[in-house]
């Protein structure tokens, strides 16, 4: 069984909404919403505790808890402190953004990441989004090209063992959340470090940050053993239009 997620927000609906997004990206990951309090806005010790007990009872090897503000963090940590030591050792409450962290953590869990990998992915989500947003702001609409140039330089010396294909995005909305997750999964499954438009193909956030829309051309590239098969596979996934074209 995969690492599970528990989402703790001051609002029951915010937690459920974030869980909804995460589940779409990662259909096989157990994502439990534990938001709100009995009196409405707030966080509830009992709700968080039963969410954790629930996922452990179902056999989750580990649980990553994502929180929004203030008391959501305190409540989640307090719940962990009351658990038996062997269960507490299987919980992480990373300092991560709520929605972005949930999405990235869910994708990492879907790909089989263990407790620490999923927690680390959630933490990285904040920095990742901040960095890519800054880069894209600094270079305007050339962000994707800039990434490509970097990748080209990095691989430049090797030349002949780099396999590269150019593909056109067919679906009008381009690499929004769902296609980005599908693509990240395809790249991870291939076991090859495929770059798409200069972005790390395994990272759903980097792919989304490309802001690539329908009709845009993307360079898909990889190097080393299995590069050709991986690039061909990723290219065919993009050409398939993600069921939206």
């Amino acid at each position: 069984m995969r690492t599970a997620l528990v989402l703790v927000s001051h609002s029951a609906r915010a937690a459920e909404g974030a869980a909804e997004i995460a589940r779409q990206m990662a259909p096989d990951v157990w994502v439990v919403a534990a938001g709100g309090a009995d009196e409405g806005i707030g966080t509830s010790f009992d709700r968080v505790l039963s969410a954790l007990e629930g996922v452990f009872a179902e056999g989750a090897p580990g649980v990553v808890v994502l929180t929004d503000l203030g008391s959501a963090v305190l409540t989640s940590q307090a719940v962990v402190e009351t658990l038996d030591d062997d269960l507490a050792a299987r919980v992480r409450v990373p300092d991560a953004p709520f929605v972005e962290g949930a999405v990235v953590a869910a994708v990492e869990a879907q790909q089989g990441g263990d407790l620490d990998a999923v927690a680390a992915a959630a933490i990285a989500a904040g920095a990742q989004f901040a960095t890519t947003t800054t880069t894209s702001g600094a270079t305007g609409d050339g962000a994707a090209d800039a990434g490509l140039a970097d990748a080209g330089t990095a691989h430049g010396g090797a030349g002949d063992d780099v396999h590269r294909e150019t593909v056109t995005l067919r679906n009008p909305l381009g690499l929004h959340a769902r296609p980005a997750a599908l693509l990240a999964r395809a790249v991870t499954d291939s076991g090859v470090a495929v770059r798409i438009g200069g972005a790390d193909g395994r990272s759903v956030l980097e792919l989304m940050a490309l802001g690539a829309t329908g009709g845009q051309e993307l360079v898909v590239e990889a190097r080393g053993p299995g590069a050709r098969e991986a690039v061909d596979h990723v290219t065919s996934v993009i050409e398939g239009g993600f069921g939206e074209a």
Partner: protein
Amino acid sequence: MTLDVAWVDRWVRRTAAVVAEHRVELIELDRQIGDGDHGENLHRGFTAVVGRLDELTEPPAQIGDVLKLVATTLMSTVGGAAGPLYGTAYLRAAKVTGLPELDAPAVVAMIEAGLEGIVARGKATTGEKTMVDAWSPAAAAAQTAAAGGATALEVLEAAANAAEAGAVATDPMVATKGRASYLGERSAGHRDPGAASSALVLRAAVTAATDPVVPAAP
């Protein structure tokens, strides 16, 4: 009077009574610099604690059993940050009081564990206008008293006195942690409600040891 299980039972019931008595005052303090729910939340929490104490079919064997019951009840009934903060304080205190009776070093250990719990959860240090400003001097005073050969009750009294002085000392402070920090300079001139309630809790521990009367449920 010894600090035994009967004492800790009286301490908890007296805390509930004192919080009920000061409910409006705590709400008022919190309304000045917070969201005004501290008095109400604590009142609800300790009322629930007394309810659970009353439900026990046999008396707990150790001090820590009662403190753990307080911890889990407060965590699940007190909203906002106060629930996890007080809950963790009692939980950590429970872990070092698996004893039928407390001597002076055990009282020091209990108060220090409570302080550590609050610091671990809230990440605050002294001077930030929080509960820590009551608990930190209380722990230091308890330690000094015990080192000077004070009895368990004298250690408790030293802690309560220091917590009260610590709460008063939060008046001019500018909050840099918690919700009051949103007010910045405007938070100065008001006592921190968490420090104020902490002083009430520690004073109730002393009263419970000197007055055998168990206050009625609030």
